[in-house]
């Protein structure tokens, strides 16, 4: 038990910088598809990526299904209708040949990553984080692959996996999020361009934290990445995902799918720090982050844990979920969602208990400031055969100022009487007396807010891997700048 948070609060100077710091864009020649969505575009994507026929068919099946369904409207978010025919579905940096090492990567790309603070350069990688960096749709560099290979761990871009490990991809793709799932997941299934793939073989504890940094760069492109992570029997893996996007006035759509598959006694920990461009202080621009993340605890005693820190995006629509199929399997969801200005977030989790003695925990911390709206939406379902299963949900909301909104929508569906479901919810306000107390001890107002918010989120921050926790704390402070008078 660590009693004292290990990190320092950020210095005042960086807390005052009020701009979106990742709002630069890189000028690189792009290989793009024309805007719009039809079977030809899908064929083009599949062809460019040299995909096998089964995958093209899989995409087309999804696309045909997509044509028959409507965009969901149940979330507590508002936005003008999305014109799916004005989006460019494929954009790739033009590259001359396959890259042998980082030295061959376009220096402009490396510069971009440097601004993002991604330690791509292997020499800089003190912490042993392997990075699969996704720049728009194509993964440009993968590090530490050799080290991982020694353990039999496969960690590569999705496209590469399709070429090098087609059997694994075919076996698992769509097993957790089928190509006929929800509207945005189906769209992703039709047009996804790249993403990360990871397979950890039987009994292997992955020797390092795996990390992917996604970035939307090209104008008017949607980003539809697909991540597939498989932990075989007894395997353990921790995966970190960080996201930023350049600053643009138009809204951009991001509809990703993440599938996690845990076999018997396997453990997957998936952590996200999401910092997509949230729009300006008047609500102009920003990313629509409509993401489907789901894990399947397929084997007995398997364990999937989601941790997310969501500070970015104009609109977030995201419910990382667990299907607890194996007996004694465990699902966890730890979330911090911060909204400021005119941001909207509708986020939460779904825990579906199917196996016996399954356990799930949901801890959600929502912080709303400015004119933003922040909703927790969660579903806990106890299936008919899940005897002796338990869920505990705790949803806390913190309000800053008097213009922000917080909502909680817990859905509980119990089909087995031999189960326990607990739900706790609180709503509180950062009050003037707390702020005054901290200021009276010499702490400046921005740091005082940051300290209160960090304290509110402590349970979740403690779930994050160390290096991510530091970044998350900084992001929390930056996201809430200007939120107090």
């Amino acid at each position: 038990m660590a009693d004292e948070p290990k990190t320092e609060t950020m210095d005042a100077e960086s807390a005052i910088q009020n701009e979106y710091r990742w709002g630069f864009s890189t000028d690189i020649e792009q290989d793009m598809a024309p805007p719009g969505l039809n079977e030809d575009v899908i064929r083009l994507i599949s062809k460019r990526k040299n995909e096998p026929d089964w995958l093209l068919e899989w995409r087309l099946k999804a696309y045909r299904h997509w044509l028959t369904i409507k965009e969901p409207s149940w979330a507590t978010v508002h936005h003008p209708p999305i014109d799916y025919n004005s989006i460019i579905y494929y954009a790739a940096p033009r590259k001359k040949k396959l890259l042998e090492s980082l030295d061959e990567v376009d220096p402009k790309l490396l510069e971009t990553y440097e601004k993002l603070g991604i330690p791509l350069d292997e020499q800089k990688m003190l912490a042993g984080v392997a990075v699969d960096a996704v720049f728009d749709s194509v993964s440009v560099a993968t590090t530490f692959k050799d080290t991982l290979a020694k353990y039999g761990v496969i960690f590569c871009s999705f496209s590469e996996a399709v070429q090098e490990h087609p059997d694994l991809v075919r076996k698992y793709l769509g097993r957790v999020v089928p190509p006929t799932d929800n509207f945005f997941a189906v769209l992703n299934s039709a047009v996804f361009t790249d993403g990360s793939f990871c397979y950890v073989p039987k009994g292997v504890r992955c020797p390092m934290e795996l990390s992917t940094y996604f970035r939307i760069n090209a104008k008017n492109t949607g980003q539809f990445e697909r991540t597939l992570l498989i932990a075989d029997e007894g395997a353990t893996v921790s995966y970190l995902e960080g996201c930023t996007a350049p600053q643009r006035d138009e809204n951009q759509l991001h509809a990703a799918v993440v599938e996690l598959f845990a076999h018997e006694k396997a453990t997957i920990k998936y952590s996200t720090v999401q910092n997509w461009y949230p729009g300006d202080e008047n609500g102009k621009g920003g990313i629509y982050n409509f993401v489907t993340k789901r894990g399947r605890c397929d084997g007995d005693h398997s364990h999937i844990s989601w941790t997310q820190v969501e500070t970015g995006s104009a609109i977030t629509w995201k419910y990382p979920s667990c299907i607890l199929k194996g007996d004694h399997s465990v699902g966890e969801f730890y979330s911090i969602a911060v909204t400021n200005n005119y941001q909207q977030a509708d986020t939460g989790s779904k825990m579906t208990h199917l196996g016996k003695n399954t356990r799930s925990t949901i801890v959600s911390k929502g912080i709303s400031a400015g004119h933003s709206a922040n909703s927790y939406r969660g579903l806990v379902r106890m299936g008919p055969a899940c005897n002796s299963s338990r869920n505990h949900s705790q949803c806390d909301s913190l309000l800053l100022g008097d213009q922000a909104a917080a909502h909680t929508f817990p859905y509980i569906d119990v089909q087995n009487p031999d189960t326990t479901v607990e739900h706790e919810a609180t709503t509180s306000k950062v009050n003037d007396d707390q702020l005054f107390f901290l200021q009276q001890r010499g702490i400046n107002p921005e740091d005082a807010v940051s300290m209160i918010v960090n304290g509110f989120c402590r349970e979740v921050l403690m779930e994050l891997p160390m290096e991510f926790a530091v970044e998350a704390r900084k992001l929390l402070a930056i996201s809430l700048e200007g939120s107090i008078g």
Partner: protein
Amino acid sequence: MLTITDLKASVAGNDILKGVNLSVNEGDVHAIMGPNGSGKSTLANVLAGHPAYTVTSGTATYKGENLLDKEPHLRAREGLFLAFQHPVEIPGVTNAYFLKNALNALREHNGEEPVDAVEFRTILEENIRIVGIDNALLKRPVNEGFSGGEKKRNEILQLLVLNPALAILDETDSGLDIDALKIVASGVNHFRADDRAVVVVTHYQRLLNYIEPDFVHVLMDGRIVKSGDRMLAQELEARGYDWIRDELSEGDAA
């Protein structure tokens, strides 16, 4: 060190301070006494800059500068400390973490290096002994689940660690049993020095049995109506406040 001249202040539109004059020099301990609702806590909060209070006229000069223009955290960094009557809870923020950040904010302001872990531990150990609080309270969130007495001792711990020039204690004795009162008083006496000043705001004389004031002032209806030495406090204890009120009305009649 602190000069208050004809200070008037209101809260939520009600005039509370109606012209306070007070001068505090280095080394002084002043006690401000008065019946409930006389404006004692308002004076303490106005000096520290609580946003709920509005200064309507008058001045307060601290170390030769206008105090009332400064933001609360800058007043604190320049050595003005308020021990709260009702210390707030900060969930999830450990006491030690909070104290370290506060100390470093002061150090940075004074152009000093941040405190290192070993030095900080030494400072804490020295001071928790004086205020008699359990080491475990340092690892718990600020004031969360603390008893009334623990909260007050925790305020004194902050006083000792942050080591200000001017300490204002707002009803620090309220809700304390006699043992806790003695400990709090010994903490304040430990703090007392020739280059520091203390303003003790209290309703009762009993705290002044342990913290001997140099001056005692009676605040009534927003004004300091009587000043004296510690004998005045004892007289108030024996006779209550009514005789001063009577004295005042006689004065008005004359």
